[in-house]
């Protein structure tokens, strides 16, 4: 068979999702953001939510998410995405309102907004990228940084006596009555990607159905911030991050 005979639309089994823009991203090669963006674009299309989806972008590496996924977006101030999403959800009932936030945005500067939006049970889905570091600003310590982990602001490794302990925010959110679904996933293997997609689908379903706040934490790599190759990052994440941030559902009502 010649290639021309094979390359036909009816033979296509994998392609760029319709709602993922055909352009280069600013993400580093090997970063988890691209995979999660793809999952979101696929799901919004598959679930028929394109016309009703409103995303809230964070400050951090995903600040330009609105340039990559073809739905309506609001760019929030650092940490304030859950407050922005609260108003969007309350004032636009029946819409899918989701925030996309990193660990610095969600679990440091935006902790209050995160906890209170979840405690009110806002009908929003929070996609939480936890890579244990501030990527955009050059690899500083995040609340989620593991003990002993070297960053630009913990050059000798994070110390509990100086910097406190790695914050497990999903475990905090799981205790709140307003949350209906808290899960921790990863995208380092094909199987993990499929599980994450199922988790985000459930979170989106919950939001549209008005069941309360859903949080999908995705333990992620930051190979440039961690100063490793993408492959090393995946191995290091599985070996070290999952011990502190075990994968699986924390709450599923």
């Amino acid at each position: 068979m010649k290639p021309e005979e094979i390359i036909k639309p009816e033979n296509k089994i994998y392609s760029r999702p319709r709602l993922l823009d055909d352009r280069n991203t600013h993400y580093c090669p090997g970063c988890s953001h691209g995979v999660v963006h793809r999952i979101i674009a696929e799901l919004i299309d598959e679930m028929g939510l394109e016309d009703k989806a409103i995303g809230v972008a964070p400050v951090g590496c995903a600040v330009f998410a609105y340039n990559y996924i073809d739905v309506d977006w609001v760019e929030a101030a650092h940490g304030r995405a859950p407050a922005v999403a609260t108003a969007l959800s309350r004032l636009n009932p029946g819409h899918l309102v989701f925030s996309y936030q990193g660990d610095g945005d969600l679990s440091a500067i935006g902790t209050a907004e995160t906890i209170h939006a979840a405690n009110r049970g806002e009908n929003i889905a929070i996609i939480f990228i936890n890579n244990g570091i501030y990527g955009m600003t050059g690899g500083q310590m995040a609340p989620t940084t593991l003990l002993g982990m070297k960053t630009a602001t913990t050059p000798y490794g994070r110390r509990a006596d100086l910097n406190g302990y790695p914050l497990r925010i999903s475990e905090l959110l799981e205790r709140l009555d307003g949350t209906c679904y808290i899960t921790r996933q990863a995208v380092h293997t094909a199987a993990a990607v499929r599980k994450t997609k199922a988790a985000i689908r459930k979170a989106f379903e919950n939001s549209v159905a008005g069941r309360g706040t859903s949080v999908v934490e995705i333990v992620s790599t930051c190979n440039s911030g961690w100063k490793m190759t993408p492959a090393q990052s995946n191995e290091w994440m599985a070996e070290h991050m999952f011990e502190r941030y075990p994968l699986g559902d924390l709450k599923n009502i």
Partner: protein
Amino acid sequence: MEEVKLMKGNEAIAHAAIRYGVDGYFGYPITPQSEVLETLEELMPWETTGMVVLQAESELAAINMVYGGAASGKAVMTSSSSPGVSLKQEGISYIAASELPALIVNVMRGGPGLGTIQPSQADYFQACKGGGHGDYHLIVLAPATVQEMADFVGLGFDLAFKYRNPAMILADGIVGQMMEKVVLPPFRPRRTAEEIAKQCPWAVTGKGGRGHRNIVTSLEMESPAMEQNNLRFQRTYAEIEANEVRYQEYYTEDAEYLIVAFGSVARICLKAIEDARAVGMKVGLLRPITLWPFPSKALDELSKRIKGALVVELNAGQMIEDVKLSVNCRVPVYHFGRMGGMIPNPTEVLDALRADFNI
């Protein structure tokens, strides 16, 4: 028939918001403005007009809720008092930079710091000169009566939507707390989704029916493009300055001396002026209603026929800078201020005028 009510300025704001067809209010308790949130919760507008009322976890959250609501083309507002408004400055800068309409109410109390819960006008600089970061302006309305507290809700939203720029009602604690007769505006329905889509084609409401995505952001990494954004903001501000200056003059036709005061202080000064006129002193009053844009041209004109001006404020001297710029050194300009929640009486104002001008 006119519906005359007796209520506090803060309560009037709540009633006016429902009647204007506001879509959402997001607030946090702080004295002396808590009656706005309390009145809205008591009136339960979500049962009637569908208006969303939400007590946020902080002023930060409240202003960011306003940002989110405004991004979807809704008429949304918040209210607070000085320390709380300081917390909102980041969000206000974002709202201005994203060219969103919104209404922010500041019922000022004495500062700096935690200060006092008593009335003040010490947030003039913050409201009129930026407050948050970057080159931006709010449309700043200064009510002097409970009636104006009610009326400026509608005016603030009308201007905010006309220019896609946030507006602020800068009230002092006196006008927030005092009770007066007020004629409430008539009820009007909230805008439909279709009306919002027509009025606000930029609004983030889901792509439905539009075919392309809308993005609300204040971020622009390319400096030439960010400069263009700033130039666009400045054109808007120039247009507002050309069209929206509002002020009131009292006894200025033959005035030899002019008092300039805003908010409830202007009413104290009016009494001082009546006392002055009773003893033959020709004193007039200019009351700026819009603090930004400032009535510079009116003051420039008046300064050609007066001997001097006294600026009376509940602060150490803030609006006086704009008055001085307006009169361009043509006549002497003095300041009389009380601080820390103290309020001058008409006699003190008149004594200050006599002392400054040796009359």
